[in-house]
């Protein structure tokens, strides 16, 4: 490195430090005191202030939120997340990318909740379009967007809920050939698929990428869920080594009522939050069977006695 290069680099560094200090100063100045009903005192910052600082300092609002949280100043929109995951957990979420494969029943609700929770980058993969029969259970589907691509509609919804986070919508069918390329960069992949062969492809890709896969599936008033880490036996632990069960399960005949996808997607999202923030224990090597008819939730430990 010659002298002029070094001087340029030092100048950049100085500007970065100044900018960082300016941002923090602005954040601190904009912070307000808030006494929560539980008596806890918070320092909070409004969405308007975040946007204004981001514009003035030419950084993203998400970057401002992260810096604020690191100062113990909570963006209002995440205040109700603090009691469970705290500022550190929120920063981890804001700095994470989560892929959702399939933007129908499970995927739609998952995307909605991830956006509200404040996951920094949501990647949506789906090549399907909304039809009338999706209206009963797919939260992103409305009478106004019938015929539109699910991934694009979901991305618009994310922007409406949380314009500070990044959303990438891919109108593509995930295949054996493109799975790794499409999912690369994600910290976790959430299952919003509707057939076993595709799930096996995604599980395999997640193993290769070294990231967890949150399996979920529904039929009638019931659903199943499991968190699969790369080293876990995963789908083979319930379907056997070949995964040779039919492409479609019984839900194709009995259908799926409105609340079932939301029931399972909610559990899937809890797993995402837990894994990224380090709160709680992920539901690994167990299958969760949710049965709304009987009002029962069963958790079966997998792999015992092998």
């Amino acid at each position: 490195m010659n002298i002029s290069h070094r001087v340029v680099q030092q100048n950049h560094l100085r500007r970065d430090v100044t900018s960082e200090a300016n941002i923090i100063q602005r954040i601190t100045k904009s912070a307000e005191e808030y006494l929560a009903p539980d008596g806890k005192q918070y320092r909070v910052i409004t969405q308007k202030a975040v946007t204004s600082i981001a514009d003035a300092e030419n950084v993203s609002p998400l970057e401002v939120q992260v810096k604020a949280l690191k100062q113990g100043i909570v963006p209002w929109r995440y205040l109700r997340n603090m009691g469970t995951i705290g500022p550190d957990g929120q920063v981890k979420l804001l700095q994470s990318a989560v892929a959702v494969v399939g933007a129908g029943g499970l995927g739609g609700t998952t995307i909605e909740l991830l956006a509200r929770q404040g996951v920094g980058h949501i990647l949506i993969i789906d090549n399907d379009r909304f039809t009338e029969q999706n209206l009963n259970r797919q939260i992103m589907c409305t009478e106004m967007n019938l015929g539109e691509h699910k991934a694009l509609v979901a991305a618009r919804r994310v922007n409406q809920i949380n314009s500070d986070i990044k959303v990438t919508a891919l109108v593509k069918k995930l295949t054996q050939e493109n799975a790794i390329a499409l999912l690369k960069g994600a910290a976790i992949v959430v299952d919003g698929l509707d057939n076993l062969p595709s799930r096996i492809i995604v599980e395999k890709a997640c193993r290769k990428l070294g990231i967890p896969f949150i399996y979920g599936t529904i039929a009638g008033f019931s659903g199943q869920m499991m968190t699969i880490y790369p080293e876990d036996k995963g789908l083979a632990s319930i379907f056997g080594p070949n995964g040779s069960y039919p492409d479609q399960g019984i839900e194709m005949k009995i259908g799926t009522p409105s609340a079932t996808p939301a029931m399972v997607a909610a559990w899937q999202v809890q797993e995402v939050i837990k894994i990224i923030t380090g709160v709680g224990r992920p539901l690994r090597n167990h299958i969760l069977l949710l049965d709304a008819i009987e009002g029962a939730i069963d958790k079966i430990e997998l792999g015992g006695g092998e």
Partner: protein
Amino acid sequence: MAIITVRFYSLWRQYLGIDSTALEANNIEDALAKIEDEFGARLREQLKIDGIQADGKLQDYSLILLNGTSLRNLQQKDLKDGDVLQIFPPASGG
């Protein structure tokens, strides 16, 4: 002869109206035959009411685990007292 517990989950529990039963069996094949004899026809009848034609035996369209291990992954087919067979339907909706 081992005394084992058979547990039904999810839709199977709903259709059969029971969540568990005790069974005496020599090995897994024997247990599956007894389960099919006792519950197979009833389950298919209930499925038919919901418009689902299930072909074959109960074990052909169910996911079955022995103490948490899929029968498809099991090497050992013998049973011992206290073993639990867990039976539930596959689902693939999203």
